[in-house]
């Protein structure tokens, strides 16, 4: 078992157990999309495009009382340590599903009956926690597209590495650590929209990790707001926030 936390309590990338990786969010990075965003979270580099509300093809998929939300999480072949074949893997299909279910509660889909909203995530470089970074970026892109939202959605993982509960696991901690638990929340409505767990946590560790993840989400939520403010009100006004 690899030692993931040193005697000073620092992780392999020098972070404390409750410290997030460097985070960068940009809004409106693609010209053709109705909304778009770019996120860097650790080594994750993900671009998200939103198209919609738009006509549904094939038509029988349309719903009379609301919009159909569709998500595609996809990894570029060069995004991983060994080349990833371009066709969607089972992992990508599952993640696309949970991302959709994490975003849907925040969207006022009932405002757009008989339409579709497509969210496309392309992972240009993958690090631990790419689904969380992807959800965080998708919520920003949806806001950029002007889709009515009840709240933002923001995601972060907590987990366990070398016996300690840690936040925002990187690739090595994800693979070599004991547990990884990604969650997404609506930060103002205080609701959980994504929850997954891989690996062993005692009930006490679970409670601790869960609370740490929620706190981390709140920090990331500030970055989401700042990115949107930068775009829509200019950088100067951010200070007012």
């Amino acid at each position, binding site marked *: 078992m690899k030692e993931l936390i040193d005697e000073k309590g620092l992780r392999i990338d020098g972070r404390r157990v409750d410290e997030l990786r460097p985070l960068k969010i940009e809004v409106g990075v693609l010209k053709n999309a109705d909304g778009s965003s770019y996120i860097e979270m650790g080594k994750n580099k993900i671009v998200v495009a939103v198209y919609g509300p738009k006509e549904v093809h094939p038509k029988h998929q349309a719903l009379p009382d609301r919009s159909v939300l569709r998500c595609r999480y996809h990894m570029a072949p060069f995004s991983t340590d060994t080349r990833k074949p371009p066709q969607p893997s089972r992992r990508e299909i599952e993640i696309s*599903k949970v991302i959709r279910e994490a975003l849907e509660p925040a969207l006022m889909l009932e405002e757009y009956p008989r339409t579709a909203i497509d969210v496309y995530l392309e992972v240009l470089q993958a690090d631990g926690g790419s689904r969380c970074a992807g959800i965080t970026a998708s919520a920003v892109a949806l806001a950029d597209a002007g889709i009515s939202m009840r709240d933002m959605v923001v995601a972060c993982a907590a987990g366990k590495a070398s016996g300690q509960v840690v936040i925002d696991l990187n690739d090595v901690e994800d693979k070599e650590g004991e547990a990884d638990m990604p969650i997404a929340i609506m930060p103002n409505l205080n*609701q959980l929209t994504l929850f*997954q767990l891989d690996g*062993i946590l005692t009930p006490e560790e679970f409670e601790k990790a869960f609370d740490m993840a929620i706190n981390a989400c709140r920090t990331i939520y500030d970055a989401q707001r700042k990115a949107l403010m930068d775009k829509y009100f200019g950088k100067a006004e951010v200070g007012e926030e």
Partner: protein
Amino acid sequence: MSAVKKSIVVEQLRKVQMIELLSKEKRLDNRGLMDFRPITIETGVIEKANGSARVQVGNTQVIAGVKIEIGDPFPDTPDKGLLVVNTEVLPLASAYAEPGPPDEDAIELARVVDRGVRESHMIDLSKLALIPGKKVLAVFVDVNVLNTDGNLLDATSYATVASIATSKMPRYYVDENGQIKQSDEIIPLPINGIPVSVTMARIGDALIVDPTSEEEAVMDARITLVLDEDGNLCAGQKGQPGTLTFDQVKLATNIAKVKAKEIREIIKGEITKYAKG
């Protein structure tokens, strides 16, 4: 169009009814909110498989078969055996199931069940290397859903762990020429303990275990927690486009702990019965 509109109205009415019933702690089939339907487990049902189990949870019926074959290790775990869990919701299982490759629901099903087995270290995969870096044993668990009536996740999970726990295979060894051989001795898989999955549905404010198809049709959210023999959480998954409050998640972990213990006894009972022949 009017047909569709009507069905939305009907669906909403059903949900209102269900919530009313649940507020009185009642369910359509008279179960308590924390009661599972009857669970029956039969193992050793497919002689050609290394292990097998047919599981019924109410009217939900699944069958799992284990095949153990010699394969190549993954490059990043050269000295470990392989575990592959596949599920197919057969077109036999309901009027809505269709033939074809697994859809996102079936893929999620297989992956969550796989994680429960894998993360609990139920099988000691490090004991399944034959020639480290070159040849290992691969454990394929295929689960076919024969009839759906809700809670496929738990039924599939129980069939998976019961078929693994009752698997038998020849002892493999490497002879002096480096060839892989089978001895006449029949041995079980190296098993550490039984992970147990507990799935709950939120409908309105109520949390219930083991939802039926009718309950799933109106549920807001689903949460599955898998517990290992020590009572620790080893896998989890929220499903459906609804939310849970933070307190509901914590409540769910407490419920899961209690129910997992009960169900583990049922599974172990069948395993012991099978071992005795």
